[in-house]
């Protein structure tokens, strides 16, 4: 039951913030600074999420096979590989490094 409560609260909360962004009146966004900020926020959030999901193990920072996988993804991106190939490179290299005991 407690799991269902957590799911319900998360679902309602996450939907509410998604809708909030779409409903904020356009007038509030006319200022250049607000638009500039709205454009830069995804950059900050995606960068932080990438770093955390690569190096975080719970609340500790670790260097493991994921770093090699994400590095491979970065190389694939520099080579302008398609999206699927970028993700596949990360998964395959991570699995490979782990298989070798990394």
């Amino acid at each position, binding site marked *: 039951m407690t*799991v269902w*409560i*957590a*799911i319900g*609260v*998360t*679902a309602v*909360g*996450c*939907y509410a*913030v*998604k*809708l*909030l*962004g*779409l*409903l*904020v009146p356009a007038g509030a*966004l006319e200022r*250049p*600074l607000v*638009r*500039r*900020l*709205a454009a*830069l*926020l*995804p*950059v*900050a*959030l*995606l*960068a*932080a*999420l*990438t*770093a*955390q*999901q*690569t190096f*975080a193990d719970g*609340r*500790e*920072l670790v260097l493991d*096979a994921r770093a090699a*996988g*994400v590095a491979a*993804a970065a190389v694939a*991106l520099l080579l302008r590989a*398609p*999206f*699927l190939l*970028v*993700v596949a490179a*990360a*998964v*395959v290299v*991570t*699995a490979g490094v*782990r298989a070798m005991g990394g």
Partner: protein
Amino acid sequence: MTEQTALPDAPGTGVAGAKPDAAVVRDALGVGVAVGLSGFAFGVTSAGSGLGLAQTCALSLLVFTGASQFALVGALAAGGNPLTAAAGAFFLGVRNAFYGLRLSQLLALPRAVRPFAAQWVIDETTAVALTQPTRRGVRIGFTVTGLTLYVLWNLTTLLGALGAEAIGDTDAWGLDAAGPAVFLALLAPMLKNTTERAVAALAVLLGLGLLPVLPAGVPVLVAALAAPLVLWARGRRAGGAEAAAGRGAAEGENER
């Protein structure tokens, strides 16, 4: 400062980089399929964390924002209080409000449609929509990415939960690297000028540096402050000189 949002309604109106609908659909399908398939990793992780099949599927259907879903099942598996677990997932989901803020300008949806579009306001749909040069492209990109991703993410979540026992240790298959690779692929096209790179670098430092000291989900929110901090620092360095306005405008144009 040039506005990225002043989009023409039709393609081919002199915008550099205007592209045919088929190219937009291809971009959208690429992201939708790749990320949609990674729902498998969520299904496996969620089932492995002790959630039931219905609970796992409900998360993908109703929450539909990957990072929050992973955060929630992780917190619940660690024996966290359900409200604390939900709070962490919610904090991660708050970024979607900022995406919505940006998308509502680009999509220009009628008010009645917004509650239905809202569930699809996530990292991937935003990233695809933001890289389209025209409003038509933005709408096609958002819709195709959203639909593909929603259908596949839920389907693969179900399959992942069912197959969790068969596959065993998902980390051994490297599936935990899919998440950060997806985020990196979404981020890369946004890093076009020094302002954006500075924001990304500062966000990485904040996100990693604060991870050991703040509750789960909070460091990412603090890292979002990199955006206003860098804008403020650049504004200060410009020192109100007239030249700054010109430089800012030139930089804005580089973004597309």
